[in-house]
């Protein structure tokens, strides 16, 4: 299908040019002039597309200015719209009027690349803190990544609420639990939250810039550490993007093992999340039971694949570790045990009225709002959006739909319960898929050498991690080196959903809402 491609060709005619440097060829990049970049967004909105990501690349080494990119998604089609911006006149029209999440992507582009989004109502820096020098734009090629930046004086203008009885609760960056740092500011009246403002960027480690200094082969290690809990999915996404640029023929067995790792990662994290959601509703029993099951899974990972989180086992060209018949038997036995125990616990979850009282109708993200915010993954599926890269943008064996019969749970209530229940259904489904994968796994090599990509090409991949769709967009420079690596973790859009879902809830329910989203700070801040 090429609904988006048709829509833009119809609206732009000869004013749109397709760029054939992007791989895989199923994803298209089209070039429009800068003044019509916003119009393209309007066409996409009319074609029911969602905005998947927006980013910029410094292409001065390639003899161009900056490139600003917007990636749209509809069904199984991705379309990247690019516009070129001259270096000495760095601005582009904002897309925030058409697509809400653009405002945050654009704040990031402005802060890290120094290109002004004209018409964006919120131009406060994002990730770049107020104590950075104003002209520090790390993603520009002229920026020296090794420098120690001086701290300057500055102030971050917070959103304020005024009136009788309005008070403010600042939380973080160092939180009460064992979690990552971020700052939340609530305005509340009595117990009701009337506004929540997030401020992230505390764990910004310069990952995107770091990629540019690494060899292609070494980048996968860094991709595996963008968000430690999603190490498998990030490694796969990086590798698939690189492999699409070089046309690397990954052996079938390599693909299937990746899928096995991906599903094991999904189960491990969902088990932890379901337990943690219950724990935040003061039902610690579930946390301890489920974390016990999670621990069993991690130990099997360590025994069979050499790492508890299967870190660094996905490499460009395939995977680094195989499974033997004894290992398969071990996983079959483990799946059986886990499944039985899990079903007992689900029954307890489902029958507990005090838990139900907390999780139902709490932290609602309505389907219409979810669509406006273009959220992805578990959050999207709990709010009525049928999105899953395993269906719409699959790699083998997910592309064998008739064989796999993947059942993607979609709920419409959008509350904490829906997000927990989507996870429960996905765990069940992953148990089933893992068995299927092990039964029918093809023989053969697990990896092939991956070549170096040619100069000035780009690669794209979208992989369904346990949180949701992860996008990698790679670009090679004039001598085939890494020119830009764009990472879009699901957290890049889903954090917006939390800001909306928590409105009208009572302050003590915030941890519960937050846990049901459980977004990555590191994956967002990069």
């Amino acid at each position, binding site marked *: 299908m090429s609904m988006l491609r048709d829509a833009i060709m119809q609206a732009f005619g000869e004013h749109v040019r397709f760029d054939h440097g992007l791989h895989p060829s199923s994803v298209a990049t089209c070039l429009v002039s800068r003044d019509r970049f916003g119009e393209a967004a309007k066409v996409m909105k009319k074609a029911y597309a969602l905005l998947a990501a927006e980013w910029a690349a410094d292409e001065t080494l390639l003899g161009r200015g900056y490139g600003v990119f917007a990636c749209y998604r509809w069904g199984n089609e991705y379309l990247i719209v690019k516009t070129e911006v001259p270096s000495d006149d760095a601005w582009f029209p904002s897309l925030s009027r058409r697509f809400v999440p653009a405002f945050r992507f654009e704040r990031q582009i402005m802060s890290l690349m120094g290109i002004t989004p004209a018409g964006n109502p919120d131009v406060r820096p994002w990730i770049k*803190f107020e104590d950075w020098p104003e002209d*520090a734009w*790390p993603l520009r090629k002229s*920026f*020296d*990544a*090794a*420098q*120690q*930046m001086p701290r300057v004086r500055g102030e971050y203008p917070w959103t304020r609420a005024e009136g009788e009885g309005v008070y403010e609760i600042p939380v973080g*960056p*160092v939180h*009460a*639990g*064992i*979690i*990552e*740092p971020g700052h939340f500011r609530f305005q509340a009246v009595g117990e009701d939250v009337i506004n929540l403002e997030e401020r992230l*960027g*505390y*764990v*910004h*480690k*310069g*990952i995107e*810039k*770091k990629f540019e200094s690494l060899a292609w082969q070494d980048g996968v*290690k*860094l991709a595996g*550490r*963008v*968000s*430690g*809990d999603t*190490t498998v999915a990030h490694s796969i996404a990086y590798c698939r993007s690189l492999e699409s640029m070089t046309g690397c023929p990954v052996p079938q067995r390599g693909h299937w093992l990746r899928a096995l790792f991906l599903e094991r990662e999904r189960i491990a994290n969902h088990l*932890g999340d379901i337990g943690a959601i219950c724990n935040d509703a003061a039902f610690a*029993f579930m946390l*301890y*039971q489920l*974390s*016990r099951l*999670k*621990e069993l899974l*991690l130990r099997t990972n360590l025994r069979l694949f050499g790492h*508890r*989180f299967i*870190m660094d086992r996905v490499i460009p060209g395939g995977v680094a570790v195989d499974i033997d018949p004894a290992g398969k038997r071990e996983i079959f036995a483990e799946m059986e045990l886990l499944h039985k125990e899990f079903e*007992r*616990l689900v*029954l*307890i979850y489902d*029958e507990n009225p005090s838990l139900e009282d907390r999780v139902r109708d709490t932290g609602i993200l309505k389907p219409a709002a979810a669509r406006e915010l273009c959220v992805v993954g578990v959050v999207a599926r709990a709010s009525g959006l049928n999105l899953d890269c395993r269906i719409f943008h699959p790699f083998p064996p997910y592309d064998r739909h008739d064989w796999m019969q993947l059942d993607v749970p979609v709920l419409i209530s959008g509350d904490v319960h829906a997000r927990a229940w989507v996870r429960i259904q996905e765990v069940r489904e992953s148990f089933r898929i893992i068995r299927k994968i092990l039964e029918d796994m093809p023989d053969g090599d697990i990896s092939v050498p991956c070549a170096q990509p040619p100069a000035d090409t780009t690669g794209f991949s979208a992989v369904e991690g346990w949180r949701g769709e992860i996008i990698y967009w790679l670009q090679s420079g004039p001598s085939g080196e890494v020119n830009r690596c764009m990472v879009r973790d699901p957290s890049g859009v889903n954090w917006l959903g939390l800001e909306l879902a928590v409105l009208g809830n009572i302050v003590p329910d915030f941890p519960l809402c937050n846990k049901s989203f459980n977004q*990555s*700070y*590191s994956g967002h*801040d990069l």
Partner: protein
Amino acid sequence: MIRILRQIFRTGIVTEPLQLVVEEDISTVGTKLEEAIRKRFGRSLTIRQVDAGSCNGCELEIHAMNNPIYNCERFGIHFTASPRFADMLLVTGPVARNMEIALRRTYAATPSPKLVVAVGDCGCNGGIFGKSYASLGGIDAVIPVDVYIPGCPPSPTALLNGILRAIS
């Protein structure tokens, strides 16, 4: 309710004796840790965990220390919500530039005497992120560190062993 009780009885006690990373008798380690905590901290060691910029892999393993299999509470180890009650800071890294001030403030808010344990390869020396405009490297680039626990991420057993090393 009956289902909950049944599940609890069926599960039983799954906690395992702590294994020492360096060659020593398995059973002595747990008791050693407990003894050290009893003697030096009046039966409880209170830890404040600080993520100074990690990828959250180390946090997963610190969480796992609390699961019923490792059950760090049996040794009197508690995680506290405030640095003001803490005996020890368990810091994961690298130290992001944007977290430097928060880390310094947390350190200042912790009463002396205090122990600082750097967790993970990144906490020890910056790991794969190293030193850059956004990352200051290991924890000891910002606050003094008593014990280092390498690993990417270190296993829960390695973490418990590292904590034992810090207090003995």
